[in-house]
């Protein structure tokens, strides 16, 4: 979509100045804008003076669709939001709708939800690490991460039949119990995964060039992060120990033991460390889920047509990218009256300007990578 | 054989330099001047100054001219292409040039040069041009050499001060 005014605003300013300022269009087809993001950069030499994001290339009106179909029918649409971590979106939607009711979700379903949620976190973080490292020029990490991400997607396939858009959960639990093979393969995966994380870290964590590229770049303080509404690993990287899995527990998280990693300086490197540690913690959580997994049914008794009582709720979960929530207004019919998706990528991307102005072009790429956006959810 | 090469190189130089001063596009002019310098390096080789030829390419073509191109890219030159290119004094310049040319020609015509001497070494052999040049440069011309280095330093500081946007005091 053509953002006419977006371009002209910046270009007009640049012609007023006597000195030549370079306006470059990064995207929407650019290797490191992670999708169809278009960033209009105003450069002075290599320094970024001003920046404007043009988004909406992937706008599909998901909220509007949600207002015209039933609660169950909307689950597959949530897959298409953050398609990197689709089960997380399913989880947010089903837990949000379940908040209207007082159903007893069976514990087995809750544990599987947590487990799959963490697997999707691993999948998402692996894709982030892969592309982030590639943006900074470390191309080997890219393929190593994809090797493990492939294993996670295979797990999804075993459990739900789909790989990317899995449509994993149903209102009231799961559609079917997961096959035993899934549990067995998951155990095999988390047995080898920690050593693979060590491999990534060998290439990056103490690499001098990596440190020079990420340390003290794109710093955001805790106060600024809150002001900008940044959530997820970004705000944790700035030193705020806040994780919705801990603060507002859902699924099986109240019974699971995990550590919320926190950074110190709020630079790219801290965000990197936080996400790497989250990978390890996710592995731990999955291990606990496997050990504590109770038997029994995977779905509770739900009415044939889902008609929540009139009212409005907001429910959010800790998506890999940040706080992912749904605000739902029910008018007592089978379709929601208003569906609002609280998109972490959209709001985190809003902080890009603050992070980038004054930095170099090469840093913009690194910063976009460290924010970890996915445009499907940003544009909805 | 030598003479043919000389004519080739000098013809090339004259053509490219004439093209150079007539181009509207500065980048084209700069690139043509680079070509001129290649021919000049060839002439230096013919004159037995192969070290100088390499210096010509390394410093002039590879250094100074890249600096030119670099600066031209930093400036806004597209505007200048569309503007008037010449001072309105072409006739005066041409007359002056012809007069100067005739004068130089007349002087050269009257001069009888003594017979050429031979180098003490043959072309391309070692030790040769480089050693001889070094020996002269670092003994007889040591003082001018050091002065040149100070000149370079001064020019460097001057260039930085002039081109720097803001100078923190």
């Amino acid at each position, binding site marked *: *979509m*053509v*953002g*006419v*005014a977006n371009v*002209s*605003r910046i270009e007009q300013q640049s012609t007023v100045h006597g000195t030549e300022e370079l306006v470059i269009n990064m995207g929407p087809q650019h290797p490191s804008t992670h999708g169809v993001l278009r960033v209009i950069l105003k450069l002075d030499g290599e320094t970024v003076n001003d920046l404007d994001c043009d*988004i*909406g290339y992937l706008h599909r*009106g998901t909220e*509007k669709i949600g207002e015209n179909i039933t609660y169950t029918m909307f689950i597959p649409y949530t897959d298409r939001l953050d398609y990197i971590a689709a089960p997380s979106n399913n989880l947010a939607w089903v*837990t949000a709708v*379940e*908040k*209207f009711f007082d*159903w007893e*979700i069976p514990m087995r379903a*809750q544990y599987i939800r947590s487990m799959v949620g963490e697997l999707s976190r691993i999948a998402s973080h692996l894709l982030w690490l892969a592309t982030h490292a590639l943006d900074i020029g470390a191309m080997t990490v890219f393929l190593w991460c994809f090797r493990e991400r492939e294993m996670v997607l295979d797990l999804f396939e075993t459990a739900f039949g789909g790989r990317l858009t899995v449509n994993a959960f149903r209102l009231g639990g799961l559609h079917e119990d997961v096959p035993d093979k899934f549990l067995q393969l998951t155990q095999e995966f988390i047995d080898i995964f920690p050593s693979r994380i060590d491999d990534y870290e060998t290439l990056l964590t103490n690499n001098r060039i990596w440190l020079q590229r990420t340390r003290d770049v794109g710093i955001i303080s805790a*106060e600024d992060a*809150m*002001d*900008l*509404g*940044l959530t997820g690993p970004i705000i944790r990287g700035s030193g*705020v*120990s*806040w994780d919705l899995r*801990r*603060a*507002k*527990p*859902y*699924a099986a*998280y*109240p019974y699971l*033991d995990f*550590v*919320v*990693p*926190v*950074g110190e300086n709020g630079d790219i490197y*801290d965000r990197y*460390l936080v996400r790497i*540690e989250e990978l390890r913690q996710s592995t731990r959580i999955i291990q606990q889920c496997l050990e504590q997994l109770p038997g029994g049914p995977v779905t509770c008794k739900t009415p044939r047509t889902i008609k929540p009582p009139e*009212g*409005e*709720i*907001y429910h*959010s979960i800790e998506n890999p990218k940040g*706080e992912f*929530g749904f*605000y739902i207004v029910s008018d007592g019919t089978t379709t929601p009256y*208003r569906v*609002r998706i*609280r998109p972490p990528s959209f*709001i985190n991307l*809003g*902080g890009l300007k*603050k992070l980038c102005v004054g930095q170099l072009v090469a840093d913009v790429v690194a910063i976009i990578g460290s924010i970890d956006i996915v445009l499907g959810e940003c544009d*909805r | 054989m030598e003479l043919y090469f000389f004519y080739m190189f000098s013809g090339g130089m004259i053509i490219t330099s004439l093209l150079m001063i007539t181009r509207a596009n500065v980048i084209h002019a700069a690139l043509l001047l680079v070509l001129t310098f290649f021919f000049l390096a060839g002439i230096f080789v013919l004159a037995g100054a192969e070290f100088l030829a390499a210096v010509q390419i390394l410093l002039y073509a590879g250094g100074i001219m890249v600096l030119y191109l670099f600066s031209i890219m930093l400036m806004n030159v597209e505007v200048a292409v569309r503007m008037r290119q010449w001072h309105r004094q072409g006739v005066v310049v041409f007359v002056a040039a012809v007069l100067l040319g005739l004068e130089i020609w007349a002087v050269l015509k009257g001069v009888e040069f003594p017979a050429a001497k031979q180098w003490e070494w043959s072309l391309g052999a070692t030790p040769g041009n480089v050693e001889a040049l070094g020996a002269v440069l670092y003994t007889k011309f040591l003082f001018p050499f050091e002065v040149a280095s100070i000149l370079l330093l001064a020019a460097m500081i001057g260039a930085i001060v002039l081109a720097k946007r803001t100078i923190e005091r």
Partner: protein
Amino acid sequence: MPDEVVENSEETNGAPDSGETAEEVKTPPGEDLKEVVESAFPGAVLEQSAYEDHEDETTFVLGVDSLVAVATHLRDHGDSLFKLLTDLTAAHYPEAENPFEMLYHLYSIEHNRRLRLKVRIKEGQAVPTVSGIWTSADWMEREVYDLFGIEFEDHPDLRRILLPDNWGSHPMRKDYPLEGRGERIYTKPTRKEIGD
């Protein structure tokens, strides 16, 4: 390695999805927050509600005029500290007297609680921007402007964000046609407009 980690706290333990049980039916949750607001701005909270008395669903309905003052107060007051504007959106009720409802979801990391502010406005009525209070509101207000056509006073950069700049209508309104050519009220930009 991150320098600081927080051990698993047992305080927040609670059965998932249980929410608050219907013991305190009489007093809806969020009374303390109401006091925080009322102490500085008496009568600012026009309505108070919460879905099935969920603590997190506390909702205050405010007047348009008091919005910015109350929001600033809620952000800065020690008992509320709503430093995070989680979400900002709107809803359209075409039949109502005030058809548009602005929704502000606030979150306080310090107190781990949520609050929803509501402002009801008429068609064409402008809302004061809260982007001066939470910078994150900048883009979200642009989105509301884009999809609902609600104007924001003093917004630093009120442009469309998701749809093309010359999109003719506001698709999240309930009267937006779901079929037909309605959604193509959109003129192709001329070359001149693009600046080519």
